[in-house]
């Protein structure tokens, strides 16, 4: 949530004026092409997002050969969908099991696998998440309503390099025979960061019964 709490109906804030002023200056000086700015916003607001990661997860759930490919060569396996590019050049997948739960953070900035999850949510980039995910992961998970058994090992992946981590959540019970399309309704973006588990069939109305 933006820290100043203003909504869109109020007059432009100081930061809005300063950013727009810099953008106009750069256009006037011929240092940015406004059409290029629009193209970047369009791509990352509308075209790249968690819908990509959901396809990777459901194929991993339904195709053991694909899961093995993801383990052995994640860039190629994810690239098979065409999900390649900036902030996804060096992918690693980490798999949740009944004994191990994985959680991804970037304590130093906001590194995140754009190619499969899009731009990170505000909370992922926030100081509270970045400070606590490494030292207090159970408390962090509890804030997302996620409770794990006391003996589950939590593995936190701090994205300090250009390696980018995506969690493959556990496939929920009772989904045998589901199509990939229906399975996608159970995969949340938060589950692919590791702050939640995949949804149970009962929590995904509209999916296959």
């Amino acid at each position, binding site marked *: 949530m*933006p820290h100043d709490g203003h909504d869109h109906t109020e007059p432009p804030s100081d930061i809005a004026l300063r950013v727009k002023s810099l953008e106009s200056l750069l256009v006037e000086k011929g240092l940015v092409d406004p059409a290029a700015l629009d193209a970047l916003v369009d791509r990352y607001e509308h075209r790249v997002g968690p819908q990509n990661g959901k396809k990777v997860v459901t194929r991993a759930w339904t195709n053991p050969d694909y899961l093995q490919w993801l383990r052995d060569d994640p860039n190629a396996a994810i690239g098979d969908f065409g999900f390649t590019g*900036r902030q996804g050049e060096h992918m690693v997948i980490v798999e949740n099991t009944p004994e191990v739960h994985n959680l991804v953070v970037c304590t130093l900035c906001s590194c995140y696998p754009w190619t499969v999850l899009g731009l990170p949510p505000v909370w992922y980039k926030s100081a509270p998440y970045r400070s606590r995910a490494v030292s207090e992961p159970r408390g962090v998970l509890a804030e997302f309503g996620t409770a794990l058994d006391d003996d589950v090992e939590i593995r936190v992946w*701090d994205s300090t*390099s250009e*390696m980018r981590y995506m969690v493959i959540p556990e496939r929920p019970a009772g989904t045998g025979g589901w199509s990939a399309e229906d399975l996608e309704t159970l995969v949340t973006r938060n589950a692919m960061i590791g702050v939640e588990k995949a949804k149970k069939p009962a929590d995904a109305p509209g999916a296959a019964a």
Partner: protein
Amino acid sequence: MNGAHDLGGMHGLGPINPEPETEERRFHYDWERSAFAVTIATAMLGRWNIDVSRHSRERQHPIDYLKNSYYENWFAGTKTLLVETGLVTTEEIAQGRALTPPTDPESIKVPGPDEVLNAVKAGRRADLDDVVTPALATGDKVRVKNFHPIGHTRAPRYTRGRVGTIERLHGVHIFPDTHKDGVVEGYTLYCVRFDAAELWGADADGPGAVFVDLWEPYLDPA
């Protein structure tokens, strides 16, 4: 540098209070779109790299870094780099208009929409083809150096002096500490596993571990 960006293990920053995923918007204000796109597009002018860019945000005053929203920090860093590389002046930023002639189009290549999209789709790998023999192997115990560089580093404070185990090798990656100065040199990058109790002692909140990607110069055998 031991800046406000190095947040791992810090206390007192409040609850996470996440927006529900189903109600989330990608950008919350129109100026965030502009701050995002201007930052990506000006980086493509080739005057700075990703580590220079990260360092421009983290060397803000700690109070500013923590007070700013995320895209305010992007905006602050981009402004700093535009001035430091001479692309614009502080006076021009203050007045919001060009005071020196527009940049000679012959001297600088401004990417258009197709070029920016091709660039982000292609990405830019951070590993190098250098042939380097790793000094460490999977399973080795290592201790992160107790060092406090003033410049850019990607060794979080909470790992320094701590003992971990090499989990895997990622190959030879550009070393951020010198990349910040424009130098491209490669060192082996390791994924190091630290048990939660090694990092947080008795305050660790359950069985677990933190995995951190660390370059060879950060590590000593333990």
